[in-house]
């Protein structure tokens, strides 16, 4: 893996994370993360869309005129999302019912258009596909963390309704905290999503700050004390 590709990986998963840093695609992020499985389902759909749209946009990047690039990107993204929606309708019908309008709404997810415009339109196919995959993975990670957090707090379970995704074999996957957990409804309601995402962003920033401090300490261990200006 070249160093450029390593940067792409790092950007997608952490440094330039779609949800935590770019704050794109918040509408589905906030709306469907009431459970872990819902988050995972929407995350995978978004991931596939990102990989495919980045690949196609990158393939045709030499023929797209800048004046009409946005409609072309949107057309590509819309076709991919429609295909995914039909596929989910066919094979994951119950999950499709739960996620509902948010599957077609992936079209309007800004992160996909943003990656097409900012990355795929000016990089080669392999890098673009990798970028789409890593951005999608970063998005999924946030979706399932937030979903798991809200599900655990809100109804005291984890991996509820796993059979929607993994078939009837996954019926027993559901973990329950305790039988008389009263359920913290706020976590499942919209405010819970906003507050939860706020905390995730805060944690990410805290980790970044902690690491940058460490780097400075390692790089410049001895520094003469400066007199205050």
């Amino acid at each position: 893996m070249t160093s450029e590709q390593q940067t792409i990986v790092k950007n997608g998963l952490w440094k330039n994370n779609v949800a935590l840093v770019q704050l794109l695609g918040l509408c589905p992020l906030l709306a469907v993360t009431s459970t872990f499985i819902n988050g995972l389902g929407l995350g995978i759909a978004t991931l596939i869309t990102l990989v495919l749209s980045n690949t196609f946009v990158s393939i045709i990047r030499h023929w797209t005129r800048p004046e009409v690039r946005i409609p072309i990107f949107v057309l590509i993204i819309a076709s991919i999302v429609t295909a995914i929606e039909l596929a989910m309708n066919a094979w994951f019908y119950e999950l499709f019912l739960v996620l509902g309008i948010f599957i077609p709404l992936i079209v309007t997810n800004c992160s996909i258009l943003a990656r097409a415009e900012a990355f795929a339109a000016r990089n080669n196919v392999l890098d673009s596909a990798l970028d789409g995959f890593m951005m999608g993975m970063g998005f999924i990670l946030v979706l399932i963390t937030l979903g798991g957090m809200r599900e655990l707090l809100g109804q005291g379970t984890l991996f509820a309704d796993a059979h929607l995704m993994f078939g009837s074999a996954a019926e027993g996957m559901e973990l329950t905290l305790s039988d008389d957990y009263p359920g913290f409804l706020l976590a499942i309601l919209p405010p819970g999503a906003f507050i939860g995402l706020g905390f995730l962003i805060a944690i990410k920033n805290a980790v970044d700050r902690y690491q940058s401090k460490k780097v400075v300490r390692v790089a410049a261990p001895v520094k003469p004390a400066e007199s205050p200006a």
Partner: protein
Amino acid sequence: MLFRKASAPFINAQANVHSIMYQVLYALIPGTLAAIYFFGWGVLINLVIAASICLLSEALVLKLRARPVSTSLKDGSALITACLLALALPPLVPWWLTVIASIFAIVIAKQLYGGLGFNLFNPAMVGYIVVMISFPREMTFWTAPLGAVDSWLSFGDTFSIIFHGVLADQSSIDSVTMATPMDTLKTQIGLENDIESTRNHEVYGALFSNISGTGWQWINILFLLSGLWMIKQKVIDWRIPVSFLLSLLLISNFFAVSDYASYPSAVFHLFSGGTMLCAFFIATDPISACTTPKGRWIYGAGIGVLVYTIRNWGGYPDGIAFAVVLMNMAVPLLDYYTQPRIYGKNEVE
């Protein structure tokens, strides 16, 4: 000969955050004592839990934010939040519910917004709303007030309910809880029983007094009196309570006159639930309320209309918390459009 020169004002009030907050705290005492008298040990236990958690979380966040801890703790604002919360929560709520409400009030609604002076919303009301929408069942754990029953629930039973969820003899909590007068009226009107028959009902009748509800009327009257004292002391501005009570009076009177069988009288509205507590202690919060005179009139009137709307047509028996927080959101806009004219400037630009 030297004369010490001083410029006007020659007499100045020694007002600071500390003294104002403590006067508010003193003013809360009579009403709180009345609430304890009528609802028993539960209120006291809630107060202790809320106060310790509020102070503790305030100290913790201040330390995290590297701010001076002791001066901010001593200003009494966290204690006021705790006191308002304990008065708003039902007396028999589980201990963890009070803890969650206190933490949300102090950490999220107050400190995350920047601490005292920067919070957009009234912290106590945010804490109350969080538990109200999250735990609707636990928020009905009211006891019948003294007067409707003969004696307090024993300390052992109250303690056991709050910390273990059952009475000391393991029997269910349902045997000692009772709906509040406002809740009862709402349910009965929903069942198409008129107010008169509810007031004279063999079971619920004991909950109602001549003015409003047994116990509730005295709690409200005491808050009204100490509120008037605060206005005299210039701790709070008179416009917000007056406009709030006036708008609630007018709108409830309008509906009560049009259909007295299914709309409670204006007096009932003014002296039930948290009306007086809201008028003088919650809506007048100097941080989250309007600061311009005209804005304060609109702010108070808005709360009155919203409270009445939620009480009559909303899903909750009382709507103080929602009304106050909704109007808190409108405060920046109201303040912006109601700036008083500066002397010497034209009215129309």
